């Protein structure tokens, strides 16, 4: 499904994400890596409170905005593809210790070489995966 290039909302939304990450670092001394926060919120009893609050805030604000604008984001992928993708994202972000936010935003902001390499690898592999699925195999949705 084609989507339009939306430079203004992309920059504005990105700045809000950056502001959130900066606030978390400034006020709590914590990195806003979503995969890490989710894992620790599930597994660590101590220090669970702020993580649960952060994740609740994320879900509430996004849900409210999507309801307000009436956006229906659906890919139409079957459950098999969603499960495969979810397993890979969960497994990969645990093994690689970060995702788009942790490595891509916070890691780069910390000038981390590990994060730069991680971003280049996951971006490159994601470009290749989408190419193969859409242009070699003809799309999965």
């Amino acid at each position, binding site marked *: 499904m084609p*989507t*339009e*290039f*939306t*430079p203004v909302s*992309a*920059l504005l*939304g*990105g*700045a*809000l*994400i*950056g502001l*959130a*990450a900066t*606030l*978390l670092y*400034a*006020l*709590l001394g914590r990195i806003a890596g*979503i995969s890490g926060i989710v894992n620790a919120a599930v597994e660590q009893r101590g220090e669970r409170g*702020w993580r649960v609050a952060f*994740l*609740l*805030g994320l*879900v509430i*604000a*996004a*849900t409210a905005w*999507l309801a307000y604008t009436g*956006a229906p*984001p*659906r*890919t139409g992928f079957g459950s098999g*593809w969603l499960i*495969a*993708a*979810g*397993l*890979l*994202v*969960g497994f*990969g972000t*645990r*093994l690689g210790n970060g995702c*788009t936010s942790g490595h*891509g*935003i916070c890691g*780069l902001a*910390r000038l981390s070489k590990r994060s730069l*390499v*991680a971003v280049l*690898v*996951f971006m490159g*592999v994601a*470009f290749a995966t989408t190419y193969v*699925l*859409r*242009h070699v195999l003809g799309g*999965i949705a």
Partner: protein
Amino acid sequence: MKRIAFALLAGLLFGLGLAVSGMTDPNKVLNFLDLAGRWDPSLALVMGGALAVTLPGYAWLRRRGCSYDGDALPPAPSPRLDPRLLVGSALFGIGWGIAGYCPGPALANLLHAGEALVFVAAMLAGSQLARVLAR
């Protein structure tokens, strides 16, 4: 209590940012990843917009040396590259490239799109699998 309130505020801003930027729509993410299709460069500007705030913000905090409450900042990231980082990032890239969901946008869709629920459940399972297998 103050930490909880600050974290909630940061989470609200993060979720709002994801939704405003359009990154909650997996189609938009996939169309960024699809260089050979009708390319939508929006995701690059989301990253750019975020880094425009975090780069100076983090640099200022590093000079300051501690958080607002005087908490130590996380130690400087290790420069060490290892197979786990490379393999993990590559597997994440495959999963991201399949469905266009990474952890933040998937959670943002949790109450909005039923498919995100399936994805997030699988994501939690995958993470636990890695925790057990790759100790």
